[in-house]
């Protein structure tokens, strides 16, 4: 039986048998469609003669080897005039061992985790992400925003945990919440009417005395028909030129607009926990400068991050994202803290070294390689520690807590994270 995971190994073996003949074809796509069935897409010029016989031969073998995951020979190959058009809408990655062959994956979601947008210009964008929930991610974000604002910075905070909104309630009292939220804008933008909503999707938090915190919640003061709206927020818009703008691009347009209107020094984004469509967009599509990976030292955390890192490695995009990643040691215990962090670093190093760091062949210099020693304090695998603190454990009481807490306590709990975020802002200001 050929399960989904057997597709690529089987395809590679079949193509290997035709290696010589395939060298004369400019490009090929191994197209895995929405149902995980495979077709080959080839240039139109390959639709007759020797090339056609080669492709039909491959199609026959595919049908024999992967059965229901292949198409009948007469339907197995699609011919396209143009490579760009053939690739449109697919997530692409090279097929190992074949320079002219690419895997084209078609997914029913926009979040493929493998299309990495370059860093956005202007104020740095920091994404707070975790593979599992309940690790204090939103709390850390709220505390960071407050601390940065107390240092006279303008902070823009977006609650993109749309399926489990709540961050804004930590930063805004009921009567200060804006009329609309991100989901309202996404839904109005679908009918080309996002502008009137735009002016009322943010509010300033009263918690900051010196700088400013602009909060953009998932929904407005009255959530309205939130579920009906959320179910439509992921739609694409078709422009008058017929071009499709997927929802990640629409979201990016919203954030660019907010940056232009509010001129923040830094943008903090609360991403959804877990490997899902929304978190993919936050981590890979918005042009993040820094992606904070919140972690506990447990199996669920490490296996989740391993799935993600491996996907980046296999899709050959690790180099585009890895320098923006930073592990955060969430809720580190009060007792035996150093030992806990040491163990966490060991596990984290094993993960980063195995999936993301460049290998150093024996006898070769390390200089040009992206690689770190396990003990390197500045390495992305070395966790920035956040202390466990009961007072911050429940988001429900967080707003009251933030209103009362003094700066020194925030620094004690979240110190390294906040220092690094401040440095990021200073660095950006110096560049400008």
């Amino acid at each position, binding site marked *: 039986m050929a399960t989904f995971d057997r597709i690529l190994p089987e395809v590679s073996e079949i193509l290997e048998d035709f290696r010589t003949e395939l060298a004369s074809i400019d490009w090929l796509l191994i*197209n895995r*469609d*929405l*149902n995980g*069935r495979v*077709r080959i*897409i080839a240039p139109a010029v390959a639709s007759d003669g020797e090339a056609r016989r080669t492709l039909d031969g491959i199609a026959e073998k595919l049908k024999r080897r992967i059965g229901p995951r292949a198409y009948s020979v007469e339907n197995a190959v*699609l011919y*396209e005039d143009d490579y760009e058009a*053939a690739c*449109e*809408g*697919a997530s692409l990655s090279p097929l190992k061992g074949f320079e002219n062959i690419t895997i*084209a994956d*078609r997914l029913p979601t926009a979040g493929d985790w493998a299309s990495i947008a370059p860093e956005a210009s202007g104020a740095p964008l920091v994404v707070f992400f975790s593979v599992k929930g309940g690790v204090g991610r939103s709390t850390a974000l709220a505390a960071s925003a407050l601390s940065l604002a107390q240092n006279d910075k303008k902070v823009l905070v977006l609650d993109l945990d749309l399926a489990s909104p709540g961050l804004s309630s930590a930063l805004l009292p009921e009567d200060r919440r804006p009329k609309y939220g991100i989901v309202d804008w996404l839904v109005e933008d679908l009918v080309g009417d996002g502008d009137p909503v735009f002016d009322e999707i943010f509010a300033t938090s009263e918690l900051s005395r010196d700088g400013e915190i602009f909060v953009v919640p998932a929904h407005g003061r009255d959530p309205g028909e939130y579920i009906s709206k959320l179910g439509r927020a992921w*739609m*694409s818009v*078709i422009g*008058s030129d*017929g071009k*499709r703008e997927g929802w990640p691009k629409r979201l990016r347009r919203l954030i660019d607009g907010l940056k232009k209107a509010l001129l923040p020094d830094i943008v903090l984004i609360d991403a959804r926990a877990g490997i899902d469509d929304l978190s993919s967009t936050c981590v890979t599509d918005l042009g993040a400068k820094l992606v904070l990976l919140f972690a506990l030292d447990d199996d669920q955390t490490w296996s989740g991050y391993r799935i993600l890192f491996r996907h980046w490695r296999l899709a050959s995009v690790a180099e585009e994202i890895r320098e923006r990643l930073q592990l955060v040691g969430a809720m580190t215990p009060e007792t035996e803290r150093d030992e806990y962090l040491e163990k966490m670093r060991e596990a984290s190093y094993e993960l980063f070294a195995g999936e993301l760091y460049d290998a150093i062949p024996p006898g070769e210099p390390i200089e040009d390689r992206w690689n770190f020693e396990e003990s390197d304090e500045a390495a992305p695998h070395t966790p920035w520690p956040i202390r466990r603190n009961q007072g911050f454990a429940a988001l429900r009481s967080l707003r009251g807590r933030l209103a009362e807490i003094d700066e020194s306590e925030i620094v004690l709990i979240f110190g390294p994270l906040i220092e690094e975020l401040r440095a990021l802002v200073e660095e950006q200001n110096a560049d400008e």
Partner: protein
Amino acid sequence: MTTDFQDAHERHWSDAEFLFQESRWANADHLYGIAAECGLKRLMIAFGMPFDSKNDMPKDRQDRTHIDIIQKRYETYRSGNLGGVGYELPDPGAFDDWNASQRYEPRGNFDRKRTEAHRKGAEDVRYLVQHARKEGLL
């Protein structure tokens, strides 16, 4: 005879292109309309249009019409279907001013501009059919 909307879509498109290159606007214009109709009917079947296999035609009389009507019927099947996300056609439709009876009109009533607009409409449908094959819908 057996109905094969996909094949009919492709051959009408090819012949329309042939005539278009020869500046035969009237018949090119007609064939672009038929090409678009066949492509949409193939997609409508994928989106759940009932098809009478015994009589080899769509079950509903309203689905046995030409592109000026079919472009609206298409939306009936597409819009309520999760698989139809990403298969929208531009609004307003490209064939609002096309009618099958125009095949009886004199050639002087057709020009490049009019035919180009319908060519674009048929091209949009062609793109959707090709996209559906890549996604595995067809």
